[in-house]
């Protein structure tokens, strides 16, 4: 169990972390969300003791993280970094060995992961000769090669094509299913919604929302409403209370409204005005929650 409690960290006048708390249990997958510059990378670096927090704590199974724990963690930094001229297989073997694996185990694991990512034929190629997407796959393999108990991935999906996104998603699901604790940051919220049961949303260094995605949605003070009619649906808005934001997506009206708004009267109005082609009233999407949280 990784527990991050009330981290504070300043760089000069900038408060990069200002009360950052979250946790992830073995078998759990946490989506760590936040706008650019919110403090996600700083928080992740703090876990790996790359930065020392001004206050707060990071613990693994209840104890402060020590160098031996780090050998059982896997990290994919936001700024990807590999030795450009080193062969992919050698590179992963080396990183495996730095995490305490025997030469043979490290080599086997390196080849296993490269095969898994469809790079089995590129084991002996220098990393710089691989495409950007393939380098990213090697980078993920670098985080996985030593079979870590905790995976911390900073923007693992950025820059990947849909096939690679699919592979990456599968791997993360498998890792969680195998009892690993997984934390990753992403701006692709529908992907996060798809993968994670738990999320933490950080804004200006402070974790503003965290918990189970479904429960967050249910308990959110807002609802998501969609309406498409034969006439102009925006003319019906005057019959709707508690509207927080609206936008038109083609002929479809999308609105965020208060959770306590009674929409039955509104539906009745809509039906009198013309034929209703599409109507949806749902809990907010993760994207809605995110925008609500960071505004």
């Amino acid at each position, binding site marked *: 169990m990784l527990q991050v409690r009330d981290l504070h960290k300043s760089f000069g006048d900038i408060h990069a972390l200002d009360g950052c708390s979250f946790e992830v249990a073995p078998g759990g997958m946490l989506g760590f969300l936040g706008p650019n510059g919110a403090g996600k990378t700083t928080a992740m*670096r703090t876990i790996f003791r790359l930065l020392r927090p001004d206050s707060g704590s990071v613990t693994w199974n209840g104890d402060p993280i020590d160098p031996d724990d780090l050998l059982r963690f896997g990290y994919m*930094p936001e700024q990807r*970094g590999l030795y450009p001229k080193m062969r992919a297989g050698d590179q992963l073997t080396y990183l495996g060995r730095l*995490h305490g694996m025997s030469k043979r185990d490290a080599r086997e694991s390196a080849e296993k992961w490269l095969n898994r990512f469809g790079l089995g034929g590129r084991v002996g190629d220098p990393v710089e000769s691989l495409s950007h997407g393939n380098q990213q796959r090697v980078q993920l393999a670098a985080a996985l090669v030593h079979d870590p108990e905790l995976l911390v991935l900073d923007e693992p999906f950025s820059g990947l094509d849909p096939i690679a996104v699919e592979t990456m998603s599968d791997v993360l699901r498998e890792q969680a299913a195998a009892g690993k604790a997984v934390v990753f940051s992403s701006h692709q919220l529908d992907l996060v919604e798809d993968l994670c049961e738990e999320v933490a949303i950080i804004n200006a260094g402070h974790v503003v929302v965290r918990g189970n995605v479904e429960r967050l949605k249910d308990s959110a003070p807002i609802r998501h409403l969609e309406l498409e009619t034969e006439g102009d649906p925006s003319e019906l808005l005057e019959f709707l209370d508690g509207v927080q934001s609206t936008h038109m997506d083609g002929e479809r009206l999308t609105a965020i409204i208060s959770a306590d708004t009674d929409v039955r009267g509104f539906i009745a109005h809509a039906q009198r005005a013309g034929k209703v082609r599409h109507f949806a009233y749902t809990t907010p999407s993760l994207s809605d929650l995110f925008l609500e949280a960071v505004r």
Partner: protein
Amino acid sequence: MTGLAALGQVALREISERVRSKAYLITTGLTVLIVLGLIVAPTIFGSDTTESTVGTVGEGNEVIISTAVDLGNANDEPDQPPSVAIETVQFEDREQAETALENGEVDAVLVDGNEVIVESVGGFNGNSLVSGLQQAAGTVQIQEIVEEEGQQATDIIEILTSDPLETTTLTAGDPEEGDSRTLIAYFGLLLLYLAVLLYGTWILTGVTEEKSNRVVEVLLSSVRPWQILGGKILGIGSLALFQLLGTIAIALVALRVTGAFDLPPIEIGAVLNLLLWFVVGFLIFAVLFGAAGSLVSRTEEANTIAMPMSMAAVVGFFVSISALNDPDGVVATIFTFVPITAPFVVPVRTALQSIPAWQYILALVICVASIGVLTVLAGRIYAGGLLRYGGRVGVREAWQSAAE
């Protein structure tokens, strides 16, 4: 995994990747080629023989010329080309010979074994030729006098070309061993200077490269900064030592085979002493270079930041050159106790046998302690500098931002 095992892994990676790199193979190959070239080329293309042409008029000249050749070559090694060779051209009369001298066909003219004509006084080769002929003529005269007493001409030549007085020096040990120690110290000085600049730069750029291609963040997520820095220094240091020792070995073999220079016998103690100070000196500079490398983000900036260390090596080199001339002087004594100059100065003073034992030991203690202190200081600067990007990081800033 223990700390040293990770350090060893880092060192092994440095070695295996660099040995495979074209840059290392090319520099090694070039170094060997240059060393071999310097040793072998003179024996193939060059000859140390001074060749002159002497015109002769009349009788009694041949004996002087042959004696001059014998005198000039008296100290030659048996399997070497002769130092002096004189070609003779016989002329009918003095006038013809003078014309040939004016035209530069001959370098000097001997007349009847009692006169030498040269074009003018001066000129390097002309003067040594004349003095050689003068000496030869004198020898011939002595020879004639002595032969009446029953002595042999060869004995005379031996007497004239040998040092009649035995040489004695005040310091202990025989002079040849002293030469050997000085040579080794001087050679070692040069090697340390070159190694500091060349391999120190490798460490510097190696650190900066890891920072600029961001791999350092992956490394630091599992390995401590001191393990990376230590492994890098150990790996590159081993390569440096290997390359240098290999070059020296090839040079020694080439010297033995070609006989291009006379090597005094090499003393094991002096070599070990040199090796010790080489390692000490290299470590001190390597730690400094490594810390400096962590302060810049791009390899282009690395040269600028190397400046203070390069200057320190230059100072060490020149101080030790001056120590060669005045090994007991105040300058040499002071710099014996400065960690970055001691590795240059102490081997020289040891070679010249002018360093008291207590100074030697104190200098060594200071240097080893400095390596320890510098490693801690540099390790912190390194740790603080590594994850700070955007231009050059100040030493103070790196120090303060170090995580531990």
